[in-house]
């Protein structure tokens, strides 16, 4: 029985860690597939987390909060599109601008309108007693958050959207050979805008998950780098939904296992233990550099319609 306890313990810790990474990572995957490198995801997550938290606090309607976070995220995506598609700015540095804007604004609004740590109702976990019988994982699956199931469902949905629809083909074309896509009459800017808005909305939702489903409160810098980690996971996952999901799963399992080991006695300064996820990201990036055909070749490159060649 001890093994079952260990497995369910690690899973119970890993799933809430993986879901926000999965949500923002899937969004970032659409961004990058279309050639848009959105480093602002971290800042957008913070905005989403704050907006959802605030609406739940004031109106006691967490689902409306999630919707608002989606919209705010989409608005930030639109801003990213304006700066990087219309004005063709370098995407890396523009993303840092979006990050600082989202961080500064969410922190300011929190200080002005809330002030200190305030708990909210949030979205409660389900209690599906019928799932309890499943060996090993039953006790975990039975008490997941509804948003967890939604996130799992989004993996095949994203795959279908990206690989099985005409729009997905357009998005991938725009990210690999924008010139050819343009020649075929695909509006490169238009598709890139759509992807960056979708990515922004997903980042907003991921932030909302942190405040409304997980912490059930808001704190400055609540995201703690998850937006950046998700960008790295997209590289690791080779720009495919299942790849991103596997990346998020491995990453969360590793971190959860490490925490559990630490909990059961291993003496280690906790600041140094907190470093492990970030070191892991760097290792992951160093290992996933080998080029293959899935990499969007126009990633990070602004498209100049009027230039030749």
């Amino acid at each position: 029985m001890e093994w079952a306890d260990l497995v369910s313990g690690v899973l119970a810790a890993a799933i809430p860690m993986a879901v926000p990474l999965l949500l923002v990572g899937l969004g970032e995957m659409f961004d990058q597939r279309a050639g848009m490198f959105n480093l602002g995801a971290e800042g957008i997550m913070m905005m989403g987390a704050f907006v959802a938290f605030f609406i739940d606090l004031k109106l006691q309607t967490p689902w409306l909060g999630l919707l608002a976070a989606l919209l705010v995220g989409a608005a930030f995506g639109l801003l990213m599109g304006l700066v990087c598609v219309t004005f063709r700015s370098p995407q890396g540095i523009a993303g840092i601008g979006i990050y600082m804007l989202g961080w500064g604004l969410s922190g300011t609004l929190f200080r002005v309108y809330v002030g200190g740590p305030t708990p909210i109702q949030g979205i409660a976990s389900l209690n599906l007693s019928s799932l309890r019988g499943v060996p090993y994982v039953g006790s975990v699956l039975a008490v997941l958050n509804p948003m967890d199931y939604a996130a799992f469902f989004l993996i095949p949905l994203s795959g279908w959207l990206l690989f099985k629809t005409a729009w997905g083909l357009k998005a991938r074309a725009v990210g690999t050979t924008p010139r050819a896509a343009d020649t075929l009459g695909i509006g490169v800017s238009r598709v890139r805008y759509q992807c960056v808005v979708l990515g922004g909305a997903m980042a907003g939702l991921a932030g909302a998950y942190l405040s409304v489903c997980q912490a059930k409160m808001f704190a400055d810098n609540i995201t703690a780098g998850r937006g950046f980690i998700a960008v790295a996971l997209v590289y690791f996952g080779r720009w495919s939904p299942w790849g991103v999901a596997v990346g998020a799963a491995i990453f969360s399992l590793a971190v959860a296992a490490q925490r559990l080991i630490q909990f059961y006695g291993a003496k280690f300064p906790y600041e140094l233990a907190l470093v492990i996820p970030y070191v892991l990201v760097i290792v992951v990036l160093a290992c996933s550099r080998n080029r293959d055909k899935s990499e969007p070749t126009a990633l990070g490159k602004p498209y100049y319609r009027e230039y030749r060649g």
Partner: protein
Amino acid sequence: MKKTYVIYNIAVVLVALLIALLIGAALFAVAGGNPITAYKVMLTEPLRGAFGVTETLVRAAPLMLVGVGVAVSFRSGILNIGGEGQILMGAVSGAFIGLSLPGLPKFLLVPLIFLAAFAGGALWGGIAGWLRAYLGVNEILSTVMLNYIAIQLYTYLLRAPLIDPQELAYGTGIPQTAQLTRNAWLERLIPGMRLHTGLIYAIIIAVLVYLLLWKTTLGYRMRVCGAEPLAARYAGMNVSRYLLLAMLLAGGLAGLAGAVELCGVHRRALEALSAGYGFSGIVVALFGGLHPLGIIPASALFGLLIVGADMMQRAVTIPAHIILAIQGLIILAVVSSALFITHRGIREKILGRFGWKEEVH
């Protein structure tokens, strides 16, 4: 003809700044303050007295050092977002030297601390540079991750091995080192004010970096590797090595900013020593046109904004945190404005509206 372009370029950047500040005004309104009063306090209050002016310059010194480092890295084709971590690693390395050699005379101790701080920052920047140059790891992601790692490492060092023995004796346990001995302090320039010689050192270093980048072969090669890496490789330059060098230098300069804060302002290493300079330095560098001589005035301007934001917080109860959002807007506006400067068609069109015609060659 060239003069028109210079005026045009400056006008474009100023319009971009104005747009950023206008959107910023909307943020002030959302945060429940009067934007006009807020801006008035922020931009004029620090200039009303010696305290505000000297504090502005105190902030300018680290901003200048980080900004110049960011300019070196950007010009060499690598984006250094890791200023925060590099400042902390520089400060903690400097503090370690300062605490272990307290009896050394000043003319030895201060340079040693600065050297150690440069090395600490350079190590942190160099990791990202090496990962990018030889393993192809995106430097933005690696520097961001190294920021998070540095913060934890720094806190750990201040909490355990380097903690002030008095904090342990009294049981208060504030994570900070003991105060450095007087031989490690930078002189204050005006009695009663915090302004210290670090500003002068920062200006000298900025000018040196300008000379390095624009007046030496090494600097030329670094800029070529940034502007046209393929051409640089074709010309026989080892692009990877110059990328690594640029990050070592950028990290080292941020480390020096840590030393300036350590020896000039706090006289000990304490929590939140980096105070956001790592990110603000990016804004300063972009606003200063990625040129050391533009960064010197830009750092004073952003020093003013940071001090002004603190004063505004007291005057109109908008949190000073909002300055982060304003800086984000300034980044977005400045990078967006580049299109109007580099794109010839757009430039001629706008200048044409003002009745200006391109000379025919």
